[in-house]
């Protein structure tokens, strides 16, 4: 549904060099620290930023070739942008109705009520979380086939986050859909994404299915002596610690079987990110 191939965008002091793919039926996550290039990747995919080189395809077309009909099949949430703050939700309804043939007006109004979004209040008076909720509700209100969601859970409390992810899960129950999502709360992605791309300094440094990431990847903790005799064939990154070394592996089972004395942790996505970024090869 969406493919970025060797997409490069050069800024002063930053270069995006990114390849990723979002397949039909998949929820694909993009994780990385602030300034890693997540938003630039999203904007490049949407044609809001022009790539210097590489290929971008959404529904098999370049972003600039997308017709209004194609854009109707995309729902978007952007981290740093949204509906004009001078409009109210009530103002948006006729606009969305006109823009999207598949706009489900009644359901949208109902969901706004459920998420406590006032219809008559100007959007600029909404909190960050309320603005996010509104964007997500708008994105899923018109039978889109592809959702491109940059930090959709930012500013939300735990309950609202859970409700919103529930809505997205519900959205994915219909066949032929896909989601590309980024979040700085990796816990959101762990339980939601089918595969995860990790981006740092504009480059994709890891791509793995979430199940594999959680089952095969692990953090080994050991003393300097243990580290010196360790078979490092399956060590992706290592880092010096006060107690000795932390090592990231994608073959946890190998070390569990051959080095039973080592402390081996499952490793959350946050820890994997930290090791991938801060650890040495």
């Amino acid at each position, binding site marked *: 549904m969406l493919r970025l191939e060797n997409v490069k965008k050069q800024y002063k002091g930053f270069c995006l060099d990114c390849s990723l793919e979002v397949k039909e039926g998949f929820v694909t996550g993009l994780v990385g620290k602030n300034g890693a290039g997540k938003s630039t990747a999203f904007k490049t995919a949407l044609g*809001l930023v022009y790539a210097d080189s590489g290929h971008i395809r959404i529904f098999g077309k370049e972003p600039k070739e997308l017709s*209004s009909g194609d854009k109707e099949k995309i729902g978007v949430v952007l981290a740093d942008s*949204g*509906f004009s703050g001078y*409009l*109210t939700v009530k103002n948006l309804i006729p*606009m969305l109705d006109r823009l999207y043939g598949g706009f489900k007006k009644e359901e949208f109004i109902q969901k706004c009520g459920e998420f406590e979004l006032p219809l008559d209040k100007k959007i*600029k008076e909404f909190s960050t979380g309320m603005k996010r909720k509104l964007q997500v509700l708008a994105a899923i209100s018109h039978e889109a086939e592809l959702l491109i969601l940059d930090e959709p859970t930012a500013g939300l409390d735990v309950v609202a986050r859970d409700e919103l992810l529930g809505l997205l899960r519900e959205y994915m129950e219909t066949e032929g859909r896909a989601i590309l999502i980024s979040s700085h709360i990796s816990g959101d992605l762990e339980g939601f994404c089918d595969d995860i791309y990790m981006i740092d300094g504009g480059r994709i440094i890891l791509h793995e299915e979430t199940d594999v990431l959680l089952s095969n990847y692990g953090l080994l903790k050991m003393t300097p002596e243990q580290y010196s005799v360790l078979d490092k064939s399956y060590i992706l990154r290592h880092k010096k610690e006060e107690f000795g070394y932390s090592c990231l592996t994608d073959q946890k089972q190998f070390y569990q079987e051959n080095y039973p004395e080592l402390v081996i942790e499952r490793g959350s996505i946050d820890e994997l990110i930290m090791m991938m970024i801060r650890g040495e090869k």
Partner: protein
Amino acid sequence: MKAMLIKDVNLLKGQKQFFGMLFLMIIMFTVIQSDPTFSICYVTLMFAILTLTTMSYDDYENGMCYLLTLPVSRREYVTEKYLFGMLASLSGLVGSSLVTVAAAYIKRIVYPWEEWTATAISCIILLSLALAVTTPIQLKFGSEKSRMAVFGVFALGSVAVFIIAKLCQAAGIDINAVLESAFVENLTTTVWGICVMAAAVLAVSWWISVRVLEKREF
């Protein structure tokens, strides 16, 4: 495009105080100053400037970026702004004319039909030029920087007119005679000529605005 027009009309609905103030000004200029022409021109140009306001609102907190992810092409966005500008200005022209004529009638000010026609044509030409100059600048520089840019363009325009006047004087051309010939002896041709030129300037401005927005990154 209709969706964008709906959005802009809704954005203007939040400007009730501005419209109330304009209404009072029409009454004031017509009744106190006995100057219906000024009232109509002022209000029409103010309505043309509202187009810029809607662009500022679109740009508020980087909103334009999100707007362009909706099923609206950049070309459609620009076209809608020109269309909205013309529609808003013409609404201003009609509205201010009605209020002004009513106020003039009550105050027993003589306001001939010919004078209104001349005012309306002048307003349409002026608002076309205002839209043509300000729209691409606003799209290029955003709401903050565009104020200085618009000021610069009008300053340059004034300097250019001054230089042309001086050059004509140096070449022995009597500008007053030329203007008299154009607006008294050949009025119909001149008005049509100016209208065609205004339309051409608007078309060029639209083309530049589309290019500006198509090149813009967010």
